[in-house]
């Protein structure tokens, strides 16, 4: 077995898992505290990537562009909360889904109007564009390491924010009993808007991080959002810990499944049968895992204690 390849694929899986976590954490945060289903979360991921692309060309540096683009996606998240989400909080989930489905169409078309139909590649600074020789036979692009480090740091920051700050305390309190928090004199409306903007920034960050690898393109969010849904379903909707663990597991399984499932199949079936069935099975793998987990634990692996 080629251990260098296995190592690289594991890193790739970790990278996908961390990006999934950034998207899923915003979804699960918004659902946990606001009880709001935001289908358009993937559009915020896409907008993050496009805004960052434009700013990279404007400011001449990718990292500076990310720093400037983050608050901008936060503002877009705030606007979405103010004008679309807020009137829908009192409605049922069906209305949330339909309203934000409409929002996807609007945001995707606006992106098309502003940036045109083609995807935009983001150039990396020279020092990020190279590769690094980790050890014998394992060469990894520096930028992929940066994604992993950024993802882990953001996850750590998020855990600190939710568990050890006043804002985090309010978020957790709001998730268990909104009415009580409001009755205690907390401006719940502002808290909701902040949470929404934070979720938008996290999704936007994920979009910005992936854009230099796979370019910013219309509809890029619509693919990752489904996987992010699978992540929060498996992890338990509303649970940050669940989202983190499920995101890493799903990211690793998906990546490793695509590279190794045909080899695994060849162990017990003829080679050509394995070649034909492997792509189909690896495409369905994460959904099969979701189905199995739900059959055993319908509320996901780590359902939040109070709801």
């Amino acid at each position, binding site marked *: 077995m080629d251990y260098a390849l296995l190592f690289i694929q594991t890193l790739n899986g970790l990278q996908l898992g961390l990006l999934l976590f950034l998207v899923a954490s915003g979804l699960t945060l918004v*659902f946990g505290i606001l009880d709001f*289903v935001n*289908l358009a979360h993937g559009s915020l991921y896409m907008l993050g990537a496009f805004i960052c692309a434009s700013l990279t060309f404007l400011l001449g540096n990718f990292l500076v562009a990310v720093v400037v683009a983050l608050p901008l996606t936060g503002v877009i998240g705030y606007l979405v909360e103010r004008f*679309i989400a807020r*009137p*829908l909080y009192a*409605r049922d*989930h*069906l*209305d949330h*889904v*339909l*309203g934000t*489905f*409409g*929002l*996807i*169409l*609007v945001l*995707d*078309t*606006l992106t*098309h*109007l502003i940036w045109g139909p083609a995807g935009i590649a983001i150039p990396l600074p020279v020092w990020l564009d190279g590769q690094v020789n980790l050890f014998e036979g394992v060469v990894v692009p520096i930028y992929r390491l940066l994604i992993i480090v950024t993802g882990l740091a953001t996850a750590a920051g998020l855990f600190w924010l939710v568990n050890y700050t006043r804002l985090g305390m309010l978020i957790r309190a709001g998730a268990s009993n909104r009415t009580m928090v409001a009755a205690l004199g907390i401006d719940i409306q502002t808290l909701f808007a902040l949470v929404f903007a934070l979720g938008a920034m996290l999704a936007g960050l994920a979009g910005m991080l992936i854009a230099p690898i796979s370019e910013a393109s219309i509809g890029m969010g*619509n693919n990752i959002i*489904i996987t992010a*849904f*699978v992540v*929060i*379903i498996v992890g338990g*909707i509303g649970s940050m810990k669940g989202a983190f663990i499920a995101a890493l597991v799903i990211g690793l399984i998906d990546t490793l499944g695509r590279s190794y499932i045909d080899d695994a199949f060849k162990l017990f079936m003829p080679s050509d049968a394995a070649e*034909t069935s492997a*792509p*189909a099975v*690896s*495409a*369905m793998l994460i*959904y*099969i895992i*979701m*189905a199995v987990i*739900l*059959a055993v634990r*319908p*509320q*996901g692996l780590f359902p939040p204690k109070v709801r």
Partner: protein
Amino acid sequence: MFLTKRSSRITLVVMALLLVMPVVFYNTGNEFYLDLATRLVILGIAAVSLNLVLGYGGLVSFGHAAYIGIGSYAVGIPVYHEFYGGFESVASTNGLFQIGLAVGLSALFALITGAISLRTKGVYFIMITMAFAQMVYYLFLSLDEYGGDDGLVIEMRSQLPLVDLDNPIELFLLCYVSLAISMLIVRTIIHSRFGMVLQGAKGNNERLITLGYNTYLYRLTAYVISGAMCGFAGALMGNFSSFISPEMMGWSRSGELMFMVILGGAATTMGPVFGSIAFILVEEVLSSLTIYWHLPFGLMLIGVVLFARGGLMGILRGKGD
């Protein structure tokens, strides 16, 4: 009685217009409108089937496009093997076999995914049905033999007794009759004891369970019936477009079906049909005006959700009906 209700009279008028106008247009040389009407009627069947679970059952399925896909591929794959060999056991151009396959596989898929999804509720149910549909989407995307991403041209329409599907009028009439029958089926179901339990569980599931009903089984049965009907619509769709691709079961398609039901009015007999008429007409008009038609369309969707509760049927019924 039936005809004294304003909404029922409108129902009859609209259904009659839906039958007569396309045929008249076709005979005066406007073949385009017959195509439009056929597509509309097929999507109407899908919306009627979705309404059974979504409207009457309160089960928000975000994955009904998967059944359209399964139904279409159940027509396309046997024809493909009939023409290009391989997989002898399914190779066929027999329409009854293909429709049986479409309905059977859809029912089976609904049974398996429904058995898992219905153990959950609320948002979980929405997302899980969506994820299962996406699973089927990725499955067909990965099957290179059937065209994968590019889709598959269906070389020959289903061969059925009595009707020739290559004749656009006969295809339309078959779809129209199917729509009428599926509306009658759903109407019969919801007025039966079974339908009462299904609607009761929507209102208060715990109470129904306390009364001794196994609502899980009722819901699963409704889900399977709905999936089978939608799979049938898929078989018609495959015949209508003579082309299938995974794109027709993407999750935005499921969202569109849901929107048709809500736009027309959930939990009404005619609502899903009104919804699909309005949806297709607006889509047709807007997309002929601008390539950016999704923008006004999306805004309209948001507007309907925010301001027009009850859908078109709600508006038609007015007060005191």
